[in-house]
């Protein structure tokens, strides 16, 4: 996986991660300026996700694939919710533009780091089931 190999420290890898964090903090900042509980919670969620994307804690590293997917889902939900109920003003369009770019970078990062998302989810589900005694964990491919 990404976190265990040297690809993460290439210029492209670092730039990609930097871009993801910058965009996440960008949209967090915009939401924090809007006031109100909902926007503040949304901003907090983005800020936490930005930290989770780079924090070198073993648990976060192990589940970075899930953080990527979670952040994609979070941004997608924010876009869909806004598309349905608005309001449509300049700052909102900018925030949604950032979120679209963020999802794009997250997809690229996921493909680079984890590969096929379907396979990753299947593998993790199998591993989870195996932990509770409901199957065999998938063997890791030979290096």
């Amino acid at each position, binding site marked *: 996986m990404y976190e265990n190999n040297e690809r993460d420290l*290439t210029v492209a890898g670092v730039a990609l991660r930097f871009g993801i964090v*910058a*965009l996440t903090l*960008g949209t967090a900042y915009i939401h924090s300026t809007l006031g109100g509980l909902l926007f503040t919670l949304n901003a907090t969620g983005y800020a936490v996700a930005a930290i989770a994307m780079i924090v070198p804690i073993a648990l976060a590293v192990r589940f970075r694939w899930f953080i990527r997917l979670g952040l994609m889902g979070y941004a997608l939900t924010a876009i869909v919710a806004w598309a349905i109920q608005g309001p449509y003003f300049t700052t909102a369009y*900018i925030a949604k533009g950032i979120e679209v770019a963020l999802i794009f970078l997250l997809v*690229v990062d996921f493909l680079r780091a984890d590969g096929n998302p379907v396979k990753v989810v299947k593998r993790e589900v199998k591993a989870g089931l195996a932990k509770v005694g409901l199957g065999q964990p998938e063997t890791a491919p030979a290096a």
Partner: protein
Amino acid sequence: MKRLIATLALATVALAAAACSATNADTGAPGATAAPVDPNAPTVVAKDLQFVTKDVAVPAGKAFQLTFTNQDGAPHNVAIYTDSSASTNLFRGEVFSGGTKTAEVPALAAGTYFFRCDVHPDMQGTITAK
């Protein structure tokens, strides 16, 4: 591929930086008026994520000017709907942060209408046209 990804990352970071500098740059929304401002125009004030003015009286049957003062750093607007379901919009004012703007509102038939901030729908009030 590496160059492409690096370029894309830089472009997206530039986009984020532009967004951060543009959060208070909402201009040009419909409803802003270039006509002389009526000093007696009804005024709505927003402060601390609430409308200070919750009841506004306006003349029925003729267009009028509505002055909106936003005393918050957060963006607000005044949008008028037929009722509190907010399903039929009659007027949507510009969203802006901090400041005062006057907008030309189309004529309303005599009756009671609902207004709110579209950004913060909990901010609500009533307009009575008579």
